């Protein structure tokens, strides 16, 4: 796919431009969508930067206070803690989910009948919204009526939400349960797209299944791995509903990740100026990651992931 576009435009240029300019849509076709998107995504993006220099309680009008929010943010131990927690959960997500979804995806790429049936079951978490997943797990892990209460030999006093380590464990586990099927789909598609000949050649050379996995499958999955990991990073940094429903940032502030801290500051404490500053930090981090997306994997890669399905 990568090569089609330049080849086509090259061919176009050799023909007379006059006849080809006819029948081409003008800028007007793009105006409605651009205006709409600008109003609800780009203007707010500029506004959030402006609001980060104001004090605003959500009722009166915002008042400019210079760098007050920013210097407060730098001295805020919870902000620093929340960034570390966001980072920790993101890293945990990537480290747990990548090997798991690679193995499952490669396994599910096989055309055996039992694999097709199991893959269909593995898909089920994707049918639930993040809200539904969190509500389900909150019920399953309920300290009084959930699984931990029934299996105290495994879970101790059963309150997984009462300690930082177990609360973080719950968040990492639930996000694994929720998102692994999605990344498995990415790898399944990519593994099916690997040319058969590579394996046939390896087979002739007498390479074992394990060797084939390391020397053919993994290198061939590299691009999908980049895409999948970046999605995990962006998703991990902006996790919000899961934390709101499962832990509310607790115990104390022990699972207070940045996106949730922003919500608390803004919509619970009504410090919208400070919350905007946190939001801007999130934008900067996400944009940095997206630059990596565009540079490392590129727009065409995303398309090819889609088409690989």
């Amino acid at each position, binding site marked *: 796919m990568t090569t089609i576009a330049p080849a086509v435009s090259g061919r176009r240029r050799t023909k007379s431009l006059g006849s080809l300019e006819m029948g081409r849509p003008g800028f007007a076709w793009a105006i409605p969508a651009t205006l709409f998107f600008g109003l609800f995504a780009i203007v707010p993006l500029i506004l959030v930067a402006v609001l980060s220099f104001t004090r605003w309680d959500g009722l009166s009008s915002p008042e400019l206070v210079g760098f007050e929010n920013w210097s407060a943010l730098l001295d805020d131990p919870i902000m620093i803690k929340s960034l570390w927690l966001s980072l920790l959960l993101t890293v945990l997500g990537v480290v747990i989910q990548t090997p798991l979804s690679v193995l499952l995806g490669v*396994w599910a790429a096989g055309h055996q009948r039992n694999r097709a049936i199991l893959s269909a079951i593995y898909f089920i978490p994707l049918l639930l*919204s993040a809200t539904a997943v969190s509500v389900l797990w909150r019920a*399953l892990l309920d300290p009084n009526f959930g699984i931990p209460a029934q299996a105290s030999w495994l879970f101790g006093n059963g309150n997984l939400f009462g300690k930082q380590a177990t609360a973080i464990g719950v968040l990492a586990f639930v996000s694994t349960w929720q998102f692994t099927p999605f990344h498995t789909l990415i790898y399944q598609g990519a593994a099916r797209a690997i040319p058969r000949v590579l394996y046939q050649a390896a087979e002739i050379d007498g390479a074992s299944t394990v060797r084939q996995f390391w020397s053919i499958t993994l290198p061939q999955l590299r691009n999908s791995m980049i*895409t999948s990991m970046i999605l995990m990073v962006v998703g991990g940094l902006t996790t919000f509903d899961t934390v709101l429903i499962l832990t509310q940032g607790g115990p104390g502030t022990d699972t207070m990740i940045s996106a949730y801290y922003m919500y608390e500051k803004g919509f619970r404490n009504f410090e919208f100026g400070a919350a905007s500053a946190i939001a801007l930090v999130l934008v900067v981090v996400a*944009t940095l990651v997206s630059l990596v997306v565009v540079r490392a994997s590129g727009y065409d890669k995303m398309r090819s992931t889609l088409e690989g399905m």
Partner: protein
Amino acid sequence: MRRRPNYLAGLGSALWLFIVGLPIYVLVMATVQTRSGYGQNGPLGFPDDFTLSNFSDVFSGGFGHYYLNTVIVTASVVGIVLLLVPPLAYAIVRSRNKVISAVFRLFLLGLAVPAQAVIIPVFYVISTVGLYDNLIGVILPTAAFALPVSTLVLSGVMRDITPELFEAMAVDGATPRRMFFQLVLPLSKGGLSTIAVFSALQAWNGFLFPLILTQSNSTKLITMGLYDFQTQYGINIPGLLAAVILSMVPILLVYLFARRALVQGLMGAGGK
């Protein structure tokens, strides 16, 4: 294709089946028993009474109304996306206008902007124009945030249309409008269904915008209903889980009858 069965892989896949399947088992079993039955049997037990009362409880708790609201929001979001994105993608792929590539880069940038990042100004804008606690106030930003991925997906599909077809139509003197309706749209059906499913999923599963932009019962969406049930009746686990099952029914139907469209819609979500 392997000559001998891979026992290790079989073991691993069985383990994952257990991890995925156990919550699903509890989900189904809990919803068909009474609260007291669930209390006695526990989440892992097998029900000894059978009831559908949890589902009717959920509906008498107002879920039907939330359902209707969510259907309205989802249909509107899909409508807006299907109205705005095809002309935009057409212009991106076919226009020679220089501003277009800047527009395209703007939408690429939009891919990176998480909804959380702009929720405060969106709240400001929506309240200022008087759409707070109004379904329209949820529909507009939800649709806007479905645009970047949809644009990316659809312009990718339209780019694959053979240029010779356009040239043939241009020779016949076709206007851009006629090419759009007679050539581009019919050949982009797959892409259109992908972006429809993708934006429908975004709207149906949306949490942050309704959380921030609505508050009363009359504008409650399903996800908000779930969140509410959880905070208010967290103890009534069978009822709560019945609501969870009801929330996934439409997606389950799409999965059963249009699996390919759903998978591609989800993968579109992966572009985000």
